[in-house]
């Protein structure tokens, strides 16, 4: 996992979403916590965590997906897999160049063959 905020490298033991001080670091001085009351929500910490999630998603999912032209060829990509599943549900595959296009005739289901009934004379 890449750390994008320029902070010190993190320990491999720390989860990617952890926004607290690095393991083994000195606790921050009391004034750095401002006037926050004990037990209050740490808004700044949550924002920093959210920013890390977005960065992670961009780096791990969106950037690789931007190079995928045909979703059916990238089963290991979460977005491609979702697009294929959703496309199958609605009966069409989204095109790579914008709005969904008409399905080629080969994708329309073949008509059932006629099952002829044996007829006898009374």
């Amino acid at each position, binding site marked *: 996992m890449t750390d994008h905020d320029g902070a010190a490298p993190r320990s491999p033991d720390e989860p990617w979403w952890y926004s607290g001080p690095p393991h083994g670091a000195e606790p921050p001085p009391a004034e750095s916590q401002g006037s926050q009351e004990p037990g209050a929500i740490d808004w700044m910490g949550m924002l920093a965590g959210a920013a890390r999630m977005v960065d992670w998603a961009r780096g791990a999912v969106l950037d690789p997906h931007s190079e995928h032209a045909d979703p059916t060829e990238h089963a290991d990509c979460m977005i491609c897999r979702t697009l294929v599943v959703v496309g199958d549900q609605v009966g069409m595959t989204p095109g790579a160049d914008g*709005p969904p*296009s*008409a399905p080629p005739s080969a994708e329309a289901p073949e008509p*059932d063959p006629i099952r*002829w*009934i*044996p*007829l006898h*004379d*009374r």
Partner: protein
Amino acid sequence: MSRIVIMAGVGGAGTTSLVDATVRDARSTGASVRSIDAAEPQRSLALDLSALVSATIGSMAVSSGADRLAPEAWASLPGVRILAVLDEMRRACLEEDVVVVDAGSLVTLRELLELPHVLLRLLDASLTPRSAMARPDSGALFDSLSEARLQVLHLQSVLTSDSTSVRLVGRAEADGIDPVVAAAGTASLLGLTVDGVILARFPRRRDGASDRVRKQARRVEAVLQAALLHVPVWRSSDRPRSAPKGRAVLDVLAPANAVAPLGEPVAAGDGYRWDLRMPGEVAQRVRAGTQGGALVLECRGVHRWLELPAVLKRCVAVDGERTEGGLSLRWVPDADVWPRADREERGVDD
């Protein structure tokens, strides 16, 4: 609903003279009568239909990348002319008591009767969720197709009304039998009642016809009458006769003989029986099958699709019998969609 008589005949039989006689005799009853010539439908109506075709087939072509064409470009398609005849019939029914259609040849008659069925199959196949969602601008096309389907259904209801019938004009010659019998079968299969066959220019002694020719003509008349049971076959001569002796020209001259289900399926044995009415000649030649939720009937290359009753959509057709009055089809529950029947058959308790 107005009385509609559709007339058609073998080449050279004198169909137009008999159409004129039918119109004249109908007017003599005091009814208002419109005569329609299938060879010359009103051009203005044909143009309206061109706009409809342009909005449906044309739009489908455009959505596949084709260039757009002006509505007039579609007017000369053969199907559009037939559609114009059907639409002229529909409009005439709103204004007149009687409508007499001169379909001309038996080929044109078949096109006239078959076109609504074909269009409905095509439109039903086009009106799918896939086509509705395939393009962002497909809403207008979908609406046009839905509107076209309603209009075709209306045309078909005019054709298959109880007050619509087909009268065929034949010649009292050996090679004139099969075309008339085939046309009668096609009309019945497509849901119309055939209520008369007129043997035009029937040879008479007073016209100098030989005994051999008159004998052959009587034999043709007998064969036709036997093939088309309950349908009156009558002779016409230099003086065209629009109806058999003792009958009024506007009567429906024969009992209903259009192919149609005889009510709902009935329980029989371990399944169901479903009877269909059809003339003997059709019953002898017809093939029956199932496709999706429909019963398919085929006779002489003409197909008709009948929606299956709900219960039979969950059954499998086993076999059928050709009866005096038509077909009797036998069905058993489909174990794949009727698991209870399957379990009971195998003796498995719930």
